[in-house]
């Protein structure tokens, strides 16, 4: 054969060669596919019986084991959320031949509502058929005994003991701890989405929940779901033909969830709950430790018993909770209210800091205020005024509206918005509860986008006494009070202080994130704080009656909010028009004055004047915490120190 430098393309020959090769390729493909089919034929037809038996006898099964949920404790180690074992009637769907029939027969023996059946079927629909699901929980001993005698009539059905969440202090902590609820299809989808976001393999989180039927739905239970839940374990078990476990071959222990220790003081929480119940008011009280931002108590009244939800609440029982009093509504974190006069100290501080007023500024007070070139009169709560002219300290102590109308106009909405945002208004406090609302710290931009209207000077005037568009949550109010007590340092509010697992304690870090307000000229803050001290003192303080004979020095500010509606975004109580017009009573305060241990905000819906209604409750709360709780602690500490000293001496 001759060597050719460049062969000439022979298109005709190439085409026919290609055609032949394609035909050959197609024949090979077809042949190999037949080869595959022969293999499947062998597996599925010839050896079918063998594999069928193997499949049925596939005795070894891996089943998930639920981890124990982490516990929640208060600051002194009292157990607030625990796990209790209860008996449940459970069904493994795969082992039931006729589900309708089984359920019908079970209903002849037990009291199972249509709703429970529907819930059960719903749950089974979306989850693995070989797991066990409860159709009825909280069986009593008699029911357990009755079922055990007739168990053999019900293949796939059994009575199982399960750990369920139990809240020993029931309603008094529900708005802090939240509650548990059944895992729904939406929850499962959210788990998958989380896997995607964290670029984990899909199904990873579901796997974690393979043996779990409930998850945190509200409050701390929801916020710390990840920490509390723990890691699923597994059991390799041998089963009989029916799928019943004969013995456990291998077991990988589940890892219990982390325990959470709170800043919360159970005694204080219960004391506040009791005080509010006695008064019979709706509202919220939040108490924080100024030096850490830890929440000592967070009460929202009325409340409900979260244990009702443990076994799955019926719609009838649930409907009972949908009263005009709205016990399900967490007023401390979700309620947004006008702050009224409680923010006057903050506005005064801002006025001094920005230099629009000085400690010597005096404002004429005829009992009303009006804008230049406008004859609309903004009235003071005291019709005849607080005197010819009023200074800043008197304005805080006596809660003079005219002074603050004037101050707000001098500051202007832009400065107010910026300054009050630094106190945390219009922002989340960072509290470890997902449901937290932010309220409204109004600004020109806010009004433009929310209302489509420009900002008027009249709007600013209303802001000066904490009315108008301004709304806050009780949490924000407590936080802003702590900022004053704490000389300008603002912490994130936190319920959880530390996590514990296997005796290893780990601090909840974000609590250290804080904001420092410019207090470079200390006299501004001193003046404001001094004024707040005089609020609780004779002769003129608006809370002087409530704090008469107090054994400590407290600082405070009262507020009485005119209410057009309980909150702009609430619409429920058309039936209560009359009461709806009653004022909200407010009080903020901290004590002891020199070294604040507690700062609080009291918010009582439609209770009337703040000085006569909210301040007395605050007094009792402070008395309890400072004189009973801290004294005990101090005694203990002193004792300890003595012992240490003695020990050292010896």
């Amino acid at each position, binding site marked *: 054969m001759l060597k050719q430098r460049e062969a000439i393309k022979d298109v005709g020959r190439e085409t026919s060669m290609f055609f032949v090769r394609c035909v050959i390729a197609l024949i090979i493909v077809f042949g190999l596919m037949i080869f*595959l089919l022969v293999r*499947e034929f062998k597996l*599925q037809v010839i050896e079918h019986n063998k594999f*069928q038996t193997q*499949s049925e006898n*596939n005795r070894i099964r891996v089943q998930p084991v639920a981890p124990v949920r982490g516990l929640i404790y208060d600051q002194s180690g009292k157990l607030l959320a625990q796990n209790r074992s209860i008996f449940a009637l459970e069904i493994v769907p795969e082992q039931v031949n006729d589900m309708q029939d089984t359920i019908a027969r079970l209903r002849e023996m037990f009291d199972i509502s249509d709703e429970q059946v529907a819930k059960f079927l719903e749950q089974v629909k*979306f989850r*693995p058929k070989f797991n066990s699901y409860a159709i009825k929980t909280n069986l009593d001993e008699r029911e357990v005994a009755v079922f055990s005698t007739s168990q053999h009539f019900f293949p796939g059905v059994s009575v199982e003991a399960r750990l369920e969440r139990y809240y020993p202090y029931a309603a008094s902590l529900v708005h802090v701890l939240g509650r548990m609820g059944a895992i729904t299809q939406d929850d499962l989808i959210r788990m998958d989405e989380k896997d995607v976001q964290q670029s984990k393999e*899909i199904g990873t989180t579901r796997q974690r929940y393979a043996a779990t039927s409930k998850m945190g739905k509200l409050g701390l239970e929801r916020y710390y779901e990840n920490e509390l839940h723990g890691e699923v374990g597994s059991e390799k078990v041998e089963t009989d033909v029916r799928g019943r476990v004969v013995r456990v071959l291998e077991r990988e222990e589940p890892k219990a969830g982390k325990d959470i220790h709170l800043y919360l003081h159970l005694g204080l929480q219960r004391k506040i709950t009791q005080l509010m119940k006695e008064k019979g008011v709706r509202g919220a009280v939040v108490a924080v430790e100024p030096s850490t931002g830890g929440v000592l108590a967070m009460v929202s009244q009325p409340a409900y018993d979260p244990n009702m939800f443990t076994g799955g609440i019926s719609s009838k029982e649930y409907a009972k909770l949908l009263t005009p009093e709205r016990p399900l509504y967490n007023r401390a974190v979700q309620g947004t209210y006008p702050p009224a006069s409680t923010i006057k100290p903050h506005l005064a501080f801002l006025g001094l800091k920005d230099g629009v007023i000085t400690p010597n500024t005096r404002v004429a007070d005829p009992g009303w205020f009006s804008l230049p070139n406008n004859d609309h009169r903004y009235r003071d709560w005291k019709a005849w005024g607080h005197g010819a002219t009023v200074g800043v300290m008197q304005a805080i102590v006596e809660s003079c509206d005219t002074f603050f109308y004037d101050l707000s106009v001098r500051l202007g909405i832009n400065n107010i918005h910026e300054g009050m945002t630094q106190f945390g208004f219009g922002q989340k406090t960072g509290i470890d509860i997902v449901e937290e609302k932010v309220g409204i710290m109004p600004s020109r931009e806010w009004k433009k986008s929310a209302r489509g209207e420009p900002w008027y000077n009249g709007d600013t005037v209303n802001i000066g006494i904490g009315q108008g568009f301004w709304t806050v949550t009780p949490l924000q109010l407590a936080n802003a009070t702590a900022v004053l007590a704490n000389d300008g340092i603002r912490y994130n509010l936190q319920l959880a202080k530390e996590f514990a697992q296997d005796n290893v304690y780990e601090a909840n870090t974000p609590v250290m994130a804080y904001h420092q307000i410019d207090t470079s000229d200390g006299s501004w803050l001193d003046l404001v704080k001094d004024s707040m001290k005089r609020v609780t003192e004779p002769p003129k303080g608006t809370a002087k009656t409530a704090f008469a004979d107090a054994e400590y020095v407290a600082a405070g500010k009262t507020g009485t909010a005119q209410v057009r509606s309980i909150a702009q975004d609430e619409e429920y109580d058309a039936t209560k028009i009359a009461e709806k017009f009653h004022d909200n009573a407010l009080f903020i305060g901290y004590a002891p004055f020199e070294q604040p241990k507690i700062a609080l905000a009291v918010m009582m819906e439609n209770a009337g004047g703040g000085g006569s209604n909210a301040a007395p409750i605050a007094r009792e709360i402070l008395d309890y915490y400072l004189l009973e709780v801290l004294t005990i602690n101090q005694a203990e500490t002193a004792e300890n120190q003595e012992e240490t000293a003695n020990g050292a001496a010896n």
Partner: protein
Amino acid sequence: MALRTSAANTHKARRSLLWRLHIDVPLLVGLLALMVFSLLVVYSAGGESLALVKRQLIRFGAGLTVMLLLAQVAPRTLKEWAPLFFVVGIGFLLAVLFFGESSKGAQRWIDIGVRFQPSEIMKLAVPIMVAAYLADKALPPTFKHLLVSLVLVIMPTVLIMIQPDLGTSLLIAASGFFVIFFAGLRWRYILGALGVGLILAPIMWYFTMEEYQKGRVLTFLNPESDPLGSGYHIIQSQIAIGSGGIYGKGWLNGTQSQLEFLPERHTDFIFAVLGEEFGLIGIIILLALYFFVIWRGLYISLQGQDSFSRLLGAALTLTFFVYLFVNIGMVSGLLPVVGLPLPLISYGGTSIVTLMASFGILMSIQTHRRLHSA
């Protein structure tokens, strides 16, 4: 002749819209049918997770988009860009070796803003390059041209093999080899290569294969030797398929797969779920769909305008077959376990997009043809 032109014209007029979009309807129908099948099986294999189905749908959407885009590129353009495409691909492979990210003991990923697997590019770049190279030569290729083509195939194959990614390197070697085969490689060379392969196999075994790869082959030869380790997959998937019987246990009713005996049941081992739930009938339907797609691919290639189109089209089609043959073979216990998905059925993986890209090229070959000859 006149008759043919007018027939072609009416033909063109009738399907002008899809034609202008460069879509081949029979191929599209075949692919869509496979996708529907996939969604059904993924839903069942994934524990009835709608989220999984949703994500698979998004992948199919992306695949179809890539297919449509590539279909717009004329084969001539593709050929012009082939060398650049290839060189950049090799560059990425080298970059992976030196700067790549490791995951599960293999270095396959690279991060340039987005994280991707360069070997995925080479699945297309290699056959395109070899086809571009051979298309201008007289066919069948001379020994010299043959050697150059082999170098073009072996270089990326070796780079991917040392990542290590046996499955992908095998696919890429096959795709390059198919181009040479269709270019008219003499039968004695083919037989010779098979002989050399048999001699080289033991050498490869001792010097290039990783322990886990050896383990897979050993397990394949005797799955009962390691029933709870790597043999577990093979035994369990055979039980699943075998217990399915002729009619299957029904959708969502596969006890083997639902009981979680089957690992990776929504990815590489999805065929076992299909076999268990849809039985032999389901498998026949699946293979028929695959065969239809392959037949259409070869048919399009046969009508290709030039050597480049023909070689590339036929090679891509056969590579698709290798995918499914290797996957089904391994799940049914005929071949050792290599990590290859069941094409267009398995959940996830970039493989869907790459496969759809090659179907885009096939559609381009089909639809750019008559436009040029007109």
